[in-house]
């Protein structure tokens, strides 16, 4: 059995816990607590980590870790990044400055991204609202980071599996 550690990070309320719950074959271990911050627009928020597992065929298993979204928990980002072989960055497209949000995660995880694999996922995206998907791709190109950017509904298991596939393709290309 080959096991890979995959890390889900990104903005608050982008759906990191939800994405892991959508595909995990074990009950997801999570550290959600009651949120005091009304600006987050949700009841509970992750303060340490989420953990789930999904197998791909008989030979491979992915261990899925989720980080807290809030930047004041960035010490957990570094702890969780250790040993990760791929990064999924989820951006809530309805937030005021999604491009700036993405920039924070790209800069913080730059080393991991360049050494491993990365997919950027825009969640809750309404295609009629700016910024367009291409704007995100262009911003990444300016940073010399060429990785897939997709829009997805992470409540849907098939779409999360597709995101993981996009990561695995990159990981295999590196082997």
């Amino acid at each position: 059995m080959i096991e890979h550690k995959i890390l889900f990070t990104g903005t608050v309320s982008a759906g990191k816990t939800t994405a892991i719950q959508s595909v995990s074959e074990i009950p997801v271990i999570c550290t959600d607590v009651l949120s005091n911050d009304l600006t987050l627009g949700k009841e509970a928020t992750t303060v340490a980590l989420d953990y789930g597992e999904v197998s791909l065929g008989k030979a491979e298993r992915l261990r899925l870790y989720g980080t807290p979204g809030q930047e004041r928990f960035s010490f957990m980002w570094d702890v969780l990044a250790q040993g990760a072989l791929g990064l999924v960055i989820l951006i809530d497209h309805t937030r005021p400055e999604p491009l700036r949000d993405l920039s924070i995660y790209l800069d913080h995880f730059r080393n991991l991204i360049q050494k491993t694999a990365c997919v950027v996922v825009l969640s809750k995206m309404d295609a009629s609202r700016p910024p367009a998907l291409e704007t995100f791709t262009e911003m990444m190109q300016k940073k010399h980071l060429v990785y897939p950017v997709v829009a997805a509904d992470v409540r849907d298991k098939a779409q999360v599996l597709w995101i993981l596939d996009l990561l695995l393709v990159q990981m295999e290309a590196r082997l």
Partner: protein
Amino acid sequence: MNSTAKKPSPMHAPRPISEDLRSKAGYILRLFVEKLGGIGVKSAVIATTDGFDVASVAMSEEEGAKLSALSSSISAIGDMAIKEIGTGVDHQSITIESESGYIFIMDIRHPNCPMILSIAASKDAVLGKLIYYARQVVAKMIEA
């Protein structure tokens, strides 16, 4: 969301921690640190379970915010471990010992606003005494 809306201060949650609760927490913490300051207690913070500073003593606002966020994560991992291993439902306290000191974290099960007490102490601290008085802080905060 309106992008021109006032951004929340990173140090404090906009709600629902009342000024009354903050000032009580500050008062209780100050008494605690005054009492145990002579025996190694360096600083203390009371934070919400999601890591916002409610009150802190003997540390800068930045340090208070940092210890609040760290304690929130550690406390949540403590609860996770207890549940997964089946030795209870919630953790009550966590002690981290280093070569030169301690961080001691205790749960405050306030009915409206669950919080955490986090204390930094040097190796001079008598852990039994620290825990005894920390329990009193927790009991007073639950009533606050």
